[in-house]
C-alpha cells in the first residue's frame, strides 16, 4: 500500500515515479513515452515478420520459377520453410527481448530522477 498525496512542489521536486502515481501531466508523458516506445518496437517486429514470411506465398505464387531453384540440392521452399525460418524467428525474438529490456532500463532511470522537468 502506497500513500500518495498532492505533489509537494515547494520542498523538493518529486521523482518521475511519484509524478506517475499522482497522475500529473509529466507523469502522463513518462508513461505515454514508454508505451509508445514498446508499441513501436512490437509493431516493428510484427512488421518485419509480415514483410518477410508474409510475402513468401505471394512471391512464390507470382514467380512460379522459384520452385526450381535449389539450395545445396534442397528445393528453395524447403530450405526456407523447413530450416532457415526457425533461426530467423529466434533472432527476431532475441532482438525484441534486448530492445524491450533496454527501453525498460531507460524508463527506470528516467522516473528515478528528481531533477526532471
Amino acid at each position, binding site marked *: 500500500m502506497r500513500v500518495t498525496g498532492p505533489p509537494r512542489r515547494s520542498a523538493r521536486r518529486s521523482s518521475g515515479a511519484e509524478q506517475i502515481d499522482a497522475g500529473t501531466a509529466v507523469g502522463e508523458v513518462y508513461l505515454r513515452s514508454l*508505451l509508445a516506445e514498446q508499441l513501436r518496437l512490437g509493431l516493428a517486429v510484427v512488421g518485419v515478420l509480415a514483410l518477410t*514470411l508474409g510475402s513468401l506465398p505471394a512471391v512464390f505464387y507470382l514467380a512460379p520459377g522459384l520452385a*526450381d531453384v535449389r539450395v545445396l540440392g534442397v*528445393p528453395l521452399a524447403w530450405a526456407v520453410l523447413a530450416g532457415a525460418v*526457425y533461426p530467423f524467428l529466434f533472432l527476431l*525474438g*532475441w532482438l525484441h527481448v534486448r530492445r524491450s529490456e533496454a527501453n525498460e532500463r531507460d524508463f527506470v532511470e528516467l522516473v528515478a530522477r528528481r531533477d526532471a522537468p
Partner: protein
Amino acid sequence: MSEELDPRWGGAAVAVVVVATLVISTWGLRFSRTTSDFFVASRRVRPLLNASAIGGEYVSAASFLGIAGLVLAYGAEMLWYPVGWTAGYLVLLALVAAPLRRSGAYTLPDFAEARLASGPVRAASALLVVAIGWLYLLPQFQGAGLTLAVVTGAPSWLGGPVVAVVVLVGVASGGMRSITFVQAFQYWLKLTALLAPLAVLVVVWHGDGRPLPRDLGTGLAGAGGDDGWSTPFGGGISGLAAGPEGLYLTYSVMVATFLGAMGLPHVVVRFYTNPDGRAARRTTLGVLGLLGLFYLLPPVYGALGRAYDSDGGLDGADTMVLRLPGLMTDGLVADALTAVLTAGAFAAFLSTSSGLTIAVAGVLSQAVTPSGRGAGSPARGRRPRWRIEPVTAFRVGAVLAVAVPCAAALASPGLPVARSVGLAFAVAASTFCPLLVLGIWWRGLTDVGALAGLVAGGLGSGVGVVVALTAADDAGTGWGTALLTQPAAWSVPLAFAVMVLVSRATAGRVPADVDRFMVRLHTPEIVPLDRG
C-alpha cells in the same frame, strides 16, 4: 521389411510413459504444499523450465505425428503449419508476453475482467476458453485411440479413456507445480523420441541410396503441377484448391496460426507462473528456440516417408511416422524404434491434454466458486456467501473438462477432427487476439466494444468450425468453401474492426482506472508504483 509390429513393444512404450508421468506428478506433489503452489506453482518457475513446460504442452500429436503425415500427403505447403505455430510465439512475445504477465491474470476471463470490469465480457471469454479447449482436446483423444490401435492392435476407442484417466490423476492430484515438471520432462522426451530414431533412419536411407523426394512429383493427394510437392503454394494449403483460392487458404492459415497462439487458453495460464514480466519475455524466447529445434525434425520424416511410403495412401498418412521404422528396417531395430516413437506420441497426447485440462478446469472452477476469481488469485477474492474449496472446485472442473471431449470423441469416431486443432487457432485468433492486443495497447477499449468484437469474431470463425466439421471431405474447392473452412483471414480483421468501432461509439464507457491499469501492464516491477 516387417510391416507387422510386435504389439508388446508398443504396449510397453505406452506403459513406460504413463508410469513415468505419474511418478513425476507424485514427486512434484512433494513440492506442492500451498494453494498457491497448486494453482500457479507460486509464480517461481524459472524461464528455461517454464519454456520447456510450454514447449511440452504446445507440441501436440498434431506436431509429433501430424506434420510429417500432412507433408507426405499434401507436400511442402503444409510446412506453413509448424512455421505458423512457431511464429505465433514471436507475435506473442512482441505484443503480449510481458504485459499479460504483469496484468496478474490467471486466465483469459481474468484478464478481461481486470481490464474492463465487466461481467458479460468475462462470461463470453469463459465460454470461448471452454469451446477452444474442447475443440483442441477432441483430436488429442481420437489421436490417442488411433495410435494405440496402430501399435498394439487395441480397439480404437481405448486410447482416449487411457489418456483421460492419466491426465486426470496428474492434474487433479498435483496441480500446477507438479504438472510443470511433467510438461518439461515431456518436451525433452518428445524431442529425443523423434531425434534418435531419425538419426538411425537417415543412416539407413544413406546406405540405401534412395533418391530423396526431389525426383518425385506431387503430394499423394495429387495437387499442383509436376513439382507441386516441393513448392509451397501450387495447390493451396488444403492441397486441393489451386489458384487464388489456394493463395487465400495459405494466408488464412498464416493469420490463424500467427495470431492464434496468444489466445490458446493453456498458454496464458503458464505465463502467470513466471516471476515477472521480464521473465515472461525470456520464457517466450526460450519457447521460440525450443519449438524451432523441434520443428526441424517432422519435415524430414515427411521427406523420408515420401521416399519409402509412396504407396501407403492418404489414410495411412497420419500414422506414417509410427510405421516408417517398419518400412525401412527389420526385426528388433524396427520394433525398438517404433516403441520409442510411440512413447513420444503418447507423451504428446498426455502433455497437451494436461495443459488444456488445467486451463479449462481453471475457468470452470472459477464459474462455481462464488468469489469469481477465487481459484486463480486466492488473495483477491471477495468474501463468498457459500464456499467451495478452490482446490475441490478445480478438481470437479478437471473432470468436466476431460469427460465432455472424451465422450464426444467416443460418440463420433468418424468426425474429421484432424481439422479441429486448426480451427481452434482460427477461433482464438478471431476472439482473444483482438481482446489482448487492443486491451493491452489501446486505452479506448470499452466493455461493449470488446463484447461486440468477441461475438463477431466468435460467430465468424464458429461458422467455419461447423462447416468444416460437418461438411464432407470433397465439399468442393470454390471460393465459398475456402472462405468458410478457413475463416481467419476475414474473421480476424472483422473482430478488430468491430471492437474498435463499437468502442469508439461507446467512448463514455472507458473504465475510469484505465491509466492505473496501463501502469500495471507496462512498467517494470522494480519501479515502486501504484498498480491498482
